[in-house]
């Protein structure tokens, strides 16, 4: 599984380009690097607001690098998925990119882990990883 998350900027863009190559556990490093060299990863935009993520379900293909591009419409939210080692903050006025290459099919539940109000506990996103 490849995971990298960061605020966008010069260093961040550089990191996107090399994220899979430097951190892949599921894929051979050379394979991951080639994948990024031949085609840029798909970017999936996800918006957060009290107390939902939109879209609420995202489907990914195992072994395929993607960038989850996170923004918030109101206040700070979290984007947390323990099994994939994702723990990002989504702050107002900023874009947070999470680079991920899922390596195993399954259904994962992303939660907001930055308390945002009375309905916070219901703020979830389902990540479906298919073969």
């Amino acid at each position, binding site marked *: 599984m490849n995971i990298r998350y960061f605020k966008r900027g010069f260093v961040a863009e550089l990191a996107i380009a090399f994220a899979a190559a430097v951190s892949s556990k599921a894929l051979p490093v050379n394979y991951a690097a080639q994948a990024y060299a031949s085609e840029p990863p798909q970017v999936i935009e996800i918006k957060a607001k009290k107390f939902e993520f939109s879209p609420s379900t995202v489907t990914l293909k195992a072994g395929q690098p993607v960038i989850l591009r996170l923004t918030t419409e109101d206040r700070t939210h*979290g984007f947390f998925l*323990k099994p994939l080692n994702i723990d990002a903050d989504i702050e107002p006025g900023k874009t947070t990119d999470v680079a991920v290459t899922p390596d195993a099919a399954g259904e994962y539940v992303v939660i907001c*882990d*930055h*308390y945002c*109000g*009375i*309905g916070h506990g219901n703020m979830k996103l389902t990540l479906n990883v298919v073969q």
Partner: protein
Amino acid sequence: MRNRLDRRSFLRIAGTSLSIGALYSAFAPLAHGASNEIIRKSLADLNGEAPAPFSFIQLSDTHVGFNGPPDPLGTKAFENAVATINRLKNRPELVIVTGDLTHDADSTEEHARRYRLFKEIAGKINGTQIKVVPGENDAALDGGAMFRELMGPTYYSFDHRGVHFIALDNVSGGKPAVGGDQLAWMKSDLARFPTSAPIVVFTHRPLFDLRPDWEWFTIDGDQVLNALAPYDNVTILYGHIHRENFHQQGNTRLYAARSLIFAFPDPATPGAKKPMPFDKDRPFKNLGLRMVTGEAKGGGLQIEDVELSMNEYSGTVGMDQMLKHGKGDSADE
């Protein structure tokens, strides 16, 4: 739940004073033998008082202000728990409340009102010190500002009859974390104690990964547990999960308490976290408080999570009357 602990466990638990009279049994052996006397004296020097028998109670997740389908009775369980404590023959010297004193509110005025109501109800506990830590409902939206204004600091330590208590805040930063500053403070606070010192940590969220997708974890909880690992007698009390739970990591024992508003299911339950439904015939089912009782002669120790009864609500004040209020609040923890 009623656990009869073996001798080894008894000493460990008793050493952390988690009991009514348990410390008497635990520290009685320390009075004999030169090395034990040194430890006893050392603790007395550090804490200002030698270990002595006492008891305390843990309450958790009172959620004052909540009113919804999983518990349409509002503060009734909390009031019932206060009455239960006041009826105890062995008076607890401390009542510890492990967070979510209030249910979050849309306005600061309403939230402040809920704090005042918490203090009013808790203030009816007779002759007992009350020590609190915040839950995310209390302190996560404003960084703990209202909690500090109305209740005091969000983390602190104190000594009571030879036991060192540490209150940890793992909510007010917004995320489930203790944070570097507080962790450094805790390490500094611990540094003056020998590894044999009895230590009780109380906090809101579990300090280990109990069920991360239900937000039952603390991001840097492992750092807290690592800092506590050298100590022989550590008990951690927490809330947040609205049910009993026991977990052991090395020498450290972690206990979650029932809530006083509604219960959540077993963390082994697959799927989403949903409150246990309200049972009109048993309105306080799975709600209650923790008491630990020990026998003075050291014959055993019982940890008891006490489920509240509804006896006092029968008769003229019937369940139907009490169910008439309620506006359907969110069942967040």
